């Protein structure tokens, strides 16, 4: 992997991605992708399914390494960090998984308390209060003693959110945070993400398909397709910027620069209609 010079950590950019190139199973996911995620803002990454949005979050957190290019988080090159340094970096990063990823052996309370127990020596009373505060923020204080298999998908997501914010990290990555939430829970989660960003200055990166929700909280939207950022701008106006990418994506049209169909051979030939005896 190329190692560009370390950029300054305090130029307003928390995550700086340069020339990111990733090929998975022969398929190009990122093609020299450049991206800057500003500090203290809510940035939404949108794009069609399979375009590599979750993979991008995995690159940012060092769960995956790229074939070329660099990712700097708070001035540190993620690919160049040792295991200890990477874990130190991750202590300051919250990550909300697409499928919640709650630890099934523990109840809701212990799931949220897990990072605190692993990384601090706080007294039990303080851990209890911190956990209850986070659960209260996501509206699930009353569910503290439920096991993960007793939760609905939306509740599990809110517990995972409480766990992701338990350390008040400097960066939170949300992978599809709005999926499975009812309108009330959705509204509360939106408010929570915004509050965390406004009051604590937490940088948020959210991967989502829900433009209406994104418009309510995001400061900046980037549209990802074919391994590159094809459009970006203000969430309230990006859908009307006139580019064919945004018109197709936000308009939900099948035809356009964003491919709907996975690459395949000729349809008629595969069905046996071409070259078959009449």
């Amino acid at each position, binding site marked *: 992997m190329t190692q560009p010079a370390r950029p300054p950590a305090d130029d307003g950019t928390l995550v700086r991605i340069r020339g990111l190139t990733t090929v998975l199973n022969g398929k190009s996911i990122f093609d020299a992708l450049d991206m800057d995620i500003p500090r203290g803002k809510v940035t939404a990454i949108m794009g069609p399914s399979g375009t590599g949005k979750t993979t991008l979050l995995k690159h940012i*957190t060092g*769960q995956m390494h790229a074939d070329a290019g660099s990712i700097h988080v708070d001035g540190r090159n993620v690919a160049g960090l040792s*295991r200890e340094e990477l*874990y*130190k970096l*991750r*202590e300051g*990063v919250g*990550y909300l*998984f*697409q*499928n919640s*990823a*709650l*630890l*099934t052996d523990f109840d809701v309370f212990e799931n949220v308390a*897990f*990072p605190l127990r*692993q*990384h601090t020596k706080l007294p039990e009373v303080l851990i209890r209060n911190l956990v209850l505060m986070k659960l209260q923020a996501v509206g699930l204080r009353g569910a503290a003693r439920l096991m993960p298999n007793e939760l609905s998908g939306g509740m599990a997501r809110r517990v995972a959110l409480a*766990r992701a914010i338990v350390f008040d990290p400097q960066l939170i990555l949300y992978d599809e945070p709005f999926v499975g939430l009812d309108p009330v829970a959705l509204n509360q989660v939106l408010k929570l993400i915004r509050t965390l960003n406004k009051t604590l200055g937490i940088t948020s990166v959210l991967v989502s398909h829900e433009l209406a929700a994104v418009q309510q909280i995001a400061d900046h939207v980037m549209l990802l397709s074919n391994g590159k950022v094809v459009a970006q701008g203000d969430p309230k106006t990006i859908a009307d910027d006139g580019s064919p990418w945004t018109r197709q994506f936000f308009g939900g049209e099948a035809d356009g620069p964003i491919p709907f169909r996975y690459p395949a051979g000729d349809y008629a030939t595969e069905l046996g209609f071409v070259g078959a005896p009449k």
Partner: protein
Amino acid sequence: MSAREPLRTNVVTQSLAQIGLCGLFLLTLLAAIPRSFRYLRETTRQLWFVGAMSLTIIMVCGLFVGMVLMLQLYHVLSIFGGTSASGMVVALSVYRELGPVVTALLFAGRAGTAITAEIGLMRATDQISAMEMMAVDPIAYVATPRFLAGLIAMPLLCCVFCAMAVFGGHLVGVTWLGIDNGTFWSNMTAVVDVRTDIVNGVLLKSLAFGAVVSLIAVFQGFTTPPTSEGVAYATTRTVVASSIAILALDFVLTAFLM
């Protein structure tokens, strides 16, 4: 070269690669042992799960192995008028071979598969990734406690198995078939050697088998494809690989320890 040659080469290469990866995984596990000491509670929990929870099957099987062994030996030895040696032969067979091997096979079926399935499902549901993201080393938190628990539990389970087998032998030989109680115990204590039979046979072999079964179970769990089919295959592979490894290692250890 026949048409099957590349396929066969591929299988051999893959098997060798798996053994190599398993070796590397063992080194990672051993390196993580000092870090896993802070998760003593998790190790204790696993010790309960793989050790205490396996007691029933180990005790019942040990009892019946001893009983059937005594029954067979009694009928064979009675031809030569040597039934008084039955207790001694039961003890030697159990301490030297049957105890460690059968305990390890049962342990692989009961605890090894559970470990593989649990870790495989943790991978499939992103729990391992979530730990990574919370800056918790899954090797130190998930793999090493299970490996250590297997290592500690196996010799203890083997002792229980052997005790139950001797008790089963006594039950059939003395209580049912009428061998003299004093002869049964005195012949046994006269022949059984603590170093050769107990330390080398029971403890050393079961420790080695515990290490191998736990390593295979944890390795299969960590390397399983995160799908339901993947977890099913990994669980099967744990039993198959453990059984072969136990029997092969038993031959090697016996050759060296005799």
